[in-house]
């Protein structure tokens, strides 16, 4: 199977006063063509850093210390900025989390959708037609009139549909969805998920779907990557990972998901302890300090061990390990 996106050993450091903050360490990730891959993890696990690194739009103090990111075989790390700019929005595109702030408030939706098509050598009328067409496809009523509307004239759900229309307008090879439903209410969430599935079938793009909502990931994705403190700790087909979680962190995460709890609890369960200090990450397993199973061997770094087929976990006890 061809890979749309391949991330190999990606390591990103932020320069801070306390020293280099190692936000991503040796992250591997594959998004096969036409598949939806989910990334799940709590806040601070490096999801945003990963998105910025994929787009090569990192803040000034961030630095890719090692690793590579390839889109259909083309290396993005260190690519000329002109080439990167050319790919953004056309080959790789994003839907951001908060639709209330991700559209420019002083430009009409039509103008913003026009600007995205600036590389196309087609007439203005044709650009307008394509924009209106896409607005219709994402389920906005009266798409032609919406082109003249300003973002503040639309509701949150409508704005997120506009943001999705903008993201898929150029039929990208990879669509990154950064918690696109977090800011919306539950009914809208279902609608947006259905819309993404539908567009994915139509356009055939690969989707990298970032969320902390396990239910949404299970519903939408083919594969899932679990991230913890800047590392990918487990990856595999969604059903395998959720049914037989093989990294203790994944197991805890699923235990703590309110949607999966079988008995009523007065207090929501939480994983005891805090994220490790990423300016001086502990040696050995990154989850050791919060893990029930921690043993002497966890003082050495675990390598990914296969559980079944394409399912692996970065734990000494995973798969046929020493459990």
């Amino acid at each position: 199977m061809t890979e749309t996106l391949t991330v190999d050993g990606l390591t990103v450091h932020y320069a801070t006063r306390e020293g280099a903050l190692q936000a991503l360490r040796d992250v591997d990730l594959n998004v096969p063509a036409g598949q939806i891959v989910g990334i799940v993890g709590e806040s601070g696990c490096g999801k945003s850093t990963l998105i910025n690194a994929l787009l090569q739009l990192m803040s000034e103090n961030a630095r890719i210390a090692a690793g590579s990111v390839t889109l259909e075989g083309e290396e993005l790390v260190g690519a000329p900025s002109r080439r990167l700019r050319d790919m953004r929005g056309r080959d790789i595109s994003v839907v951001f989390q908060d639709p209330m702030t991700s559209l420019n408030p002083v430009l009409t939706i039509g103008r913003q959708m026009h600007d995205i098509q600036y590389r196309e050598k087609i007439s203005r009328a044709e650009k307008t037609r394509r924009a209106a067409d896409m607005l219709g496809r994402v389920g906005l009523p009266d798409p032609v009139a919406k082109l003249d509307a300003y973002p503040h004239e639309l509701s949150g759900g409508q704005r997120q549909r506009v943001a999705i229309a903008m993201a898929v307008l150029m039929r990208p090879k990879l669509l990154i969805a950064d918690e696109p439903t977090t800011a919306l209410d539950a009914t809208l969430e279902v609608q947006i998920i259905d819309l993404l599935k539908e567009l994915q079938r139509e356009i055939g793009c690969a989707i990298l779907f970032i969320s902390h909502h396990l239910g949404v990931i299970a519903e939408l994705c083919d594969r899932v990557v679990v991230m913890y403190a800047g590392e990918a700790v487990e990856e595999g087909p969604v059903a395998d990972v959720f049914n037989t979680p093989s990294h203790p962190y994944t197991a805890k995460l699923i235990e703590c998901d309110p949607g999966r709890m079988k008995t009523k609890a007065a207090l929501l369960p939480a994983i005891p302890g805090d994220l490790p200090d990423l300016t001086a990450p502990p040696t050995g397993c990154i989850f050791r300090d919060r893990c029930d199973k921690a043993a002497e061997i966890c003082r050495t770094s675990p390598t990914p061990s296969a559980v079944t087929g394409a399912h692996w976990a970065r734990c000494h006890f995973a798969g046929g390990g020493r459990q």
Partner: protein
Amino acid sequence: MLQYAFQRVLLALAIVFVAISALFTIMITLPGDPTTVLLGPRATPELRAEFRANMGLDDPVLVQIVNFWGRILSGDMGMDYNRNRPVAEAVFSALPHTMALVFGAIFWSATLGILLGAFSADNRNSWLDRVTGVLSVGFIAAPSFVVALYSLLLFSVTLRWFPTIGAGEPGDLASRLYHLALPSFAIGLAWVGYVARIVRASMLETLGENYIRTARAFGLTRRKVIYNYALRVAILPAVQVLGVGIGGMLSSAVFAEIVFSRPGIGSLIYDSVSGRNYPVVMGSMLVAIGFFVTCALIADLVNAALDPRQRVK
């Protein structure tokens, strides 16, 4: 938009009314007597009394205000007793010069200020940004009459690039603009500094907004993102400040008109206040305040046109 404009116009009229009435009261209650200035120190008390009665100066202040507004509303701004001509003639022949001066100053401050501000934000924390910052604060700190005097000395007297006095040949646009360049620059310079600082700050804030990240994630060019997507939002506070700043520019215009010997409302007000020439003072004040309020109104409307979110309110 229309409703918004209507509300603003009503508010502007109310401001003009209150401001002029207050100024009129202050002017009337100010010590000093026009009769002494007009009739000279040797005028008889009878002559003075007659003159005061003629001008209505003995009436209660309230009556004088009502009479004043009555005359204004019927289109009569009174007579300039010093030079025996209608006040309207004096004021409206001076107004275009002051308008040109103020609009010239706005032109300088808007173009240079926005460019400097956007440039600083684009190159933030570079040495160019620091130099621009120091310059801007220097511009703000320098009083406009000092700038006027020194620019006159440097550009007109020493370098001879610009004319020293006057407003240029009537009817000759190039000559008018040539004479306008230096005085309007002297008034606008402080506002170049203000606008640059405001645009820089609001630009930096805007560049951190999510929609800027969106624009960059869609591959728009850096220039387009900064000078189109971000600047359009970042200039909004500067437009507002310039609208209000016209008040300050009008008072700077008094100095500039005196230093550059230009006709205008500023020098008219200055002359008539020192001569206690009440009708001319009030007439020119009325026009100056009307001009200021109109400009602030235009700034509001321009802002509303630039920012669709404001039209809803």
